[in-house]
């Protein structure tokens, strides 16, 4: 690009940035994350509303081609888990709990291709997920995890603010979900997740996730940084997953003839 073209391009980008409203603040001075958002970064936005729509909505987030993925780092699984992962992959992930409409856990819920409504109050941040109608009510007033947690699909979340960043500690999971950082990513009931949400500008919340699970991983790790995009004018819709879920019936049929879907030996 020549200088003649570059300068208007730079001006155009900086003017667009200047026109963006500031990050809203709550009465107590915290960044207000209330609104409807789409998770999963640029690829998630492209998947949820179409690549052209995503480009129109966020020209700064060049939509990646959703689908085959790539670039993910391997999670540090202990050796005993690897054969289990291979078996699930050989079964072409037919066992994915989400195919049976089960709540998908944290952090996977964040990158599902349906929007999230965040309602922020002085003492709580409430996440309403269109996906499977999940919700999380996250106290930010100093409350701790209860001492009578029943292991659950979405775990128990408590939050606190570190400057402009909402830090959410999630524990109390069952072992029935897949992590969803890629493939058949198993975890145990010892899973501990720490999410960090920061509204860095008007239409972006950065999303960083720390994961540890001493029963299945050799060490803790962070997933690839991602972000949520503001979806002005959007509304949550019903996503009832069971009523017409034909996949379950078809899975059962396929399981009767495993040769149809089991991967050939490699």
């Amino acid at each position: 690009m020549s200088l003649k073209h570059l300068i208007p391009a730079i001006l155009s980008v900086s003017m667009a940035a200047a026109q963006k409203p500031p990050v809203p603040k709550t009465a107590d001075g915290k960044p207000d994350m209330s609104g409807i958002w789409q998770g999963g970064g640029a690829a998630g936005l492209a998947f949820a509303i179409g690549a052209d729509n995503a480009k129109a909505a966020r020209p700064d987030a060049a939509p990646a081609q959703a689908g085959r993925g790539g670039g993910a780092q391997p999670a540090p699984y202990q050796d005993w888990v690897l054969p289990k992962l291979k078996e699930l992959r050989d079964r072409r992930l037919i066992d994915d709990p989400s195919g049976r409409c089960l709540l998908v856990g944290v952090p996977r819920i964040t990158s599902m291709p349906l929007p999230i409504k965040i309602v922020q109050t002085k003492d709580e941040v409430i996440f309403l997920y269109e996906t499977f109608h999940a919700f999380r009510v996250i106290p930010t007033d100093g409350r701790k995890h209860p001492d009578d947690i029943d292991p659950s699909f979405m775990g128990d979340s408590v939050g606190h603010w570190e400057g402009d960043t909402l830090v959410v500690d999630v524990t109390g999971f069952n072992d029935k979900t897949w992590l969803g950082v890629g493939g058949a990513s198993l975890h145990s009931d010892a899973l501990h997740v720490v999410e960090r949400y920061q509204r860095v500008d008007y239409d972006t919340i950065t999303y960083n996730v720390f994961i540890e699970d001493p029963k299945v991983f050799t060490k803790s790790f962070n997933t690839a940084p991602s972000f949520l995009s503001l979806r002005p004018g959007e509304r949550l819709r019903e996503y009832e997953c069971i009523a017409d879920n034909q996949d379950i019936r078809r899975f059962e049929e396929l399981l009767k003839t495993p040769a149809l879907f089991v991967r050939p030996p490699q």
Partner: protein
Amino acid sequence: MRGSFFLAAVLAAAPAFAHHSFAAEYDGDKPITLKGVVSKVEWENPHMHFYLDVTDEKGKVEEWKFEGFPPNMLVRQGWRRDVTLKVGDTVTVFAWRARNGMNLAHSREITMADGKKILSGPPAGTGGGN
């Protein structure tokens, strides 16, 4: 280091965008393009389905069933219920066939009679590779 390679492949293959594994039911190596007349549209969660009457070169009509995105995602991509795809429309569908050999496929893109194209489902491999 075969184990490491395998693990990397697992973690890279499947963004968490899918409701279920594409690869469990459909074969990404069996693309198919069919032209036919829409006979039914099931605008239902968790996934839309629609049916085409496809006439072969001998004049025999076969019914094909296609899966697609959830209605909520279709709406956000510009679809309108009972408007975008209607019974009686003649369309061409690009899809991937089901592993069970039935007249079932996962649709990706629909070309309308006027040539306009619209996405109807995810790319092959979503949620588990091929």
